[in-house]
């Protein structure tokens, strides 16, 4: 029995020996193979355990290489094996929900009440719905640049030389000389080493933050920062600590506690950033810049400052908070501003040192992967800067108008004015016992307040003044803030006109609120 078995195996064994010897001789024919063989032999002799370890390593490497590139959970413990038939049944059974939840009745109303302007926007636009001319306290036309003939001429000249679109991202022949000029203009205007231009204001800071803040870095941010900053922070995957809204005492406490934690953990030195806004988009509060810089220097943080509202509106010539407080802009590591808001064109920028800017040219996702800004929008921005430099009186007019609006609204019953008194955007909410902006848990009826405010807006528009509620993405924002009406003051109107318009808003507020009572 044994004999017959070995006899049956005989040809197989001889074949194995033969193939092994051919393999061996073939192996030795390879150049350098003797060295490898000698190494394996000697290492096996010295330490057999090591051979096994190396073998396992090689197998592991091969397995990793063969694994599919797309992540599959097939081996995971939660994976359930199904037969093909069962899968077919499951596929048939599955019914997806609708892609989006249809709009609620309130959302429908919200959407249909959005004002549409016929013709050019400016201080006195015509509404598409009624054909009536209204006084505009809703659009961002702070310095009154909308419809500026000088800017238009420059834009047409640019159009005739460059066409409209840039037809490519900055890396692929999309950097036009006018972009370079505009970047230099911004840098010179602010007094920084360099600046970089993004093609949308909103996407600027949400790209700047993840370009610098990486996993493991520390971000200390204001609790009430705007949505773009929130998104940037979310993408950065850094460790985030929040401090109370515009409360620099709370900021200092947070900085101290972060430092304590680090010392306790004996962690390595990581990048640390303070992220806040110059003038908060949400409520018009203004940050105390000198104090902020003092803290930053003391605790060795870098600042990412969003000046989307304050650039082009604050300071003598619109250089923003740095000019207002007479702080050199170079103290701010990353100064982000909006060309769309401040200069009535489109896009955004980040100004800072040459290293900061160059880093973004490779790592700023919405810079690298997006088409660059149309040339004529860049030159319009340049022209707007020239205008601001040459006409410092516009911003004085703006401040006069702000004071006029606030004076009227302060006397209005039933509402609370928010924000800094110099802020070009003025928010007001309905007056209740609770007056702070960020309240958790909510002690007010969000939707009911929104409806009242919308009624006020509609009433004001019917009476010839265009205002708007501050729109937020409810449920997507980190914190729910109180519903507010936002007034954007402009220098393009005279003080009389602004006062009159504010008076209309006041009447609307009183009328709607008295109806409610």
């Amino acid at each position, binding site marked *: 029995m044994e004999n017959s078995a070995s006899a049956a195996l005989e040809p197989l064994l001889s074949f194995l020996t033969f193939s092994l010897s051919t393999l061996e001789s073939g192996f030795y024919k390879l150049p350098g193979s003797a060295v490898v063989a000698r190494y394996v032999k000697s290492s096996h002799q010295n330490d057999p355990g090591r051979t096994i370890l190396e073998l396992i390593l090689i197998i592991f490497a091969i397995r990793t290489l063969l694994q599919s590139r797309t992540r599959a959970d097939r081996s995971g413990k939660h994976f359930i094996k199904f037969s093909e038939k069962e899968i077919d049944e499951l596929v048939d059974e599955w019914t997806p929900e609708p892609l989006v939840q249809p709009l609620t009745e309130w959302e429908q109303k919200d959407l249909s009440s959005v004002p*549409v302007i016929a013709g050019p*926007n400016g201080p006195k636009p015509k509404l598409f719905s009624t054909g009536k001319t209204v006084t505009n306290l809703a659009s961002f036309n702070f310095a009154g640049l909308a419809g500026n003939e000088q800017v238009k001429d420059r834009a047409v000249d640019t159009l005739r030389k460059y066409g409209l*679109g840039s037809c*490519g991202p900055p890396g692929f022949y999309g*950097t036009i000389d006018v972009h370079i000029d505009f970047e230099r203009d911004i840098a010179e205007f602010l007094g920084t080493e360099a600046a970089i231009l993004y093609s949308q204001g*909103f996407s600027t800071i949400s790209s700047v933050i993840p370009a610098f803040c990486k996993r493991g870095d520390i971000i200390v941010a204001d609790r009430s920062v705007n949505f773009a900053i929130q998104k940037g922070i979310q993408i950065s995957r850094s460790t985030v600590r929040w401090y109370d809204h515009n409360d620099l005492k709370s900021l200092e406490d947070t900085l101290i506690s972060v430092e304590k934690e680090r010392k306790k953990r004996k962690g390595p030195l990581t990048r640390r950033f303070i992220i806040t806004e110059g003038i908060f988009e949400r409520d018009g509060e203004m940050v105390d810049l000198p104090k902020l810089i003092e803290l930053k220097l003391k605790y060795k943080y870098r600042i990412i400052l969003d000046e989307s509202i304050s650039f082009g509106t604050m300071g003598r010539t619109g250089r923003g908070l740095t000019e207002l407080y007479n702080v050199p802009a170079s103290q701010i590591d990353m100064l982000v501003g909006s060309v769309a808001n401040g200069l009535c064109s489109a896009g955004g920028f980040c100004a800072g040192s040459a290293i900061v800017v160059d880093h973004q040219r490779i790592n700023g996702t*919405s810079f690298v992967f997006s088409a660059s800004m149309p040339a004529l929008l860049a030159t319009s921005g340049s022209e707007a800067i020239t205008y601001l430099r040459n006409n410092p009186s516009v911003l004085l007019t703006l401040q006069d108008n702000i004071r006029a609006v606030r004076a009227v609204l302060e006397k209005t019953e039933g509402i609370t004015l928010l924000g800094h008194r110099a802020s070009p955007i003025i928010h007001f909410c309905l007056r209740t016992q609770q007056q702070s902006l960020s309240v958790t848990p909510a002690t007010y009826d969000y939707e009911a307040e929104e409806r009242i405010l919308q009624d006020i807006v509609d009433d004001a528009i019917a009476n010839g003044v265009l205002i708007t509620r501050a729109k937020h993405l409810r449920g997507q924002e980190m914190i729910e803030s109180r519903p507010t009406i936002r007034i954007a003051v402009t220098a393009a109107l005279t003080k009389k006109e602004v006062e009159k318009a504010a008076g209309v808003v006041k009447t609307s507020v009183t009328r709607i609120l008295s109806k409610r009572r």
Partner: protein
Amino acid sequence: MLSPIPSNQPFPSSFVFKKKEPLQSPTMTTTTSYLHSVHHADTPSVASSPALSLSSSVTAYSEDAILNEDDENNSLAYPRTPPTSEQVFTTVHAEFGHCTNEAYRCISKHDYTRPVPEHIIEGPPYYILLATYMSYVVLYFFGYTRDFFGVIFTSHFTHLLPHNGYAPLKSRFDSFYSRRLRLRIHDCVSQPVAGVPGRSIIVLDRRFIDNDHTLIHTGGKTRSLNISSYNYLGFAQARGGCADAVEESIRRYGISTCGTRLEGGSSELHVTTESLIARFLGMEDALISSMGFATNSTFIPALVRKGSLVISDELNHNSIRLGVRHSGAEVRMFMHNDMSSLESLLREVISQGQPKTHRPWKTILLIVEGLYSMEGTLVNLPRIVELKQKYKFYLYVDEAHSIGALGPHGRGVTDYFNIHPRSIDLLMGTFTKSFGAAGGYIAGSKTIIDALRLRGHSGPYAEAMAPPVLAQIVASMASIMGVAPTSQQINSTPSISQDNSSIMLKESAVGFPATAPANMLPTWMNLPPAFADGSEARMRISRLAFNSRYLHAGLKKLGFITYGHPFSPIVPLLLFNPGKMCTFVRLMRAWSPPIVVVIASYPATSSMTSRARFCTSAAHTKEDIDTVLRACDEVGGIMDLKHGSGERWGIDEVCERAVELVHSHFS
């Protein structure tokens, strides 16, 4: 230094090959000589015509567009054969090339008798692969060695080391790629330009100083043949119908609408443009966003939520990935354009349900691109629509590159495959490419689009699109559609969301592809006749299709390895070795006329498949493609790039039999 070529500018072209003389027979150095030659060409045929063709031809505009530059590259500024008086061109040759030969046209359309071509990846010979690996090894080895000693002995690294209690802004490791690899090809990327990114483009010359670390502008400018911009239909023009419309819009509307769409920045131009786009695409409704990148990154989060799954092609654009990350939805990827990988993934995710809980997914959204910007591959839409029937997922097609560029009517992949657009849930696209504008759109059913208007990030927070950009979109899009006078009443709903029973595309009433009713255009917009009747755009679309096919087929016949669909205007030419990238760019730039090309490597592609990428345009003439092919042929020979399989032709044969080559590819 990896490259054997010194990187100092100007590149000494005689170093490798002799600079070619421009091919045109009469050397036209001045306008006078050009005019003279026009006259000369005209005289025998129309001797009695006193008014020369130039009076009616926009070439005459060239005085400001061209003449104030150096006249060195006249082959780009003026056509080789001057036009006769019967030929009236409405474009500046340097922006949009003159081409009258009707044979150089082609229709971009899927042939259903043959299968959709698979994405074939042709590999290089092993020695190329080995050399590529070795290049990286050498780069890393020297890079790290220099870093190691540099930190100790030099002061170049202070900004990469902790100092004064601050951690460095970028770590040595993170910046290794840009310092040690990218810096070497610094002069070949991000080249600044001036002027219109049309058929030709003016590049600003740069020069290395400071031991090859810093680039400075020399102040010189070179007009070069532009085979790099996403100017598919050639609408990047400073003259012509679109530019006139844009100028008028600036005069009427100014530069900005001063605000976000939901907060007082909505203009009636936005509303009418959105309904025009919906009609163009054959969808119920559409919205626009002021930035193409942000269209994906700010609206996808409003589409998917927790409990939703996004299935994404592995080569999807960064903006899509960012949008999905913002949304917080689960994401799974399938292999690039591999339909069997997609199907097995679908079967797995539907049967398994959500991770851990195994609850069924709320929704599954498949996001694919119509035309992939680095590969030139076309999505296998027929198969995906089939799968969609069976697996009930929602479909989002990013047509950033394909819209306008593909299909017999320029309506993108759906048009190319003749699939009804409404069998797709969401069509997204950008205006940067084919329309020569900026920004993007999303089109779909009214319910979805209204929800996106209100819940997408752009609505309340991002600035609205600028009026000049809108005018460019309307003018170029209307010219593709053709304008038809209609008796329909323009809708007068005041809302930014269309309640447009009159404009909405009714499938029964309006055929697809639809024309643009005259009352959907702003009353002040006067399009030239060739724009209004759609003939101009038809010419552009068919020229683009011809140019794309010709370049693909030509490069193949010359023996290069290329990727992508034959109709794709994106033509990647594989270089593999990272060192060849800069050499290729420098040699192409030294050609006469200079040719600017885009190179791409890690992180845009895998680091092993470094490539040069051409983008054809309707603005190119057949001679321009010949020029590119000739340059590639010679440069490719020098650089050892011809490793493709298949039959090879000589360069002269390729140029002569171009028409045959373009059409034979069908068989």
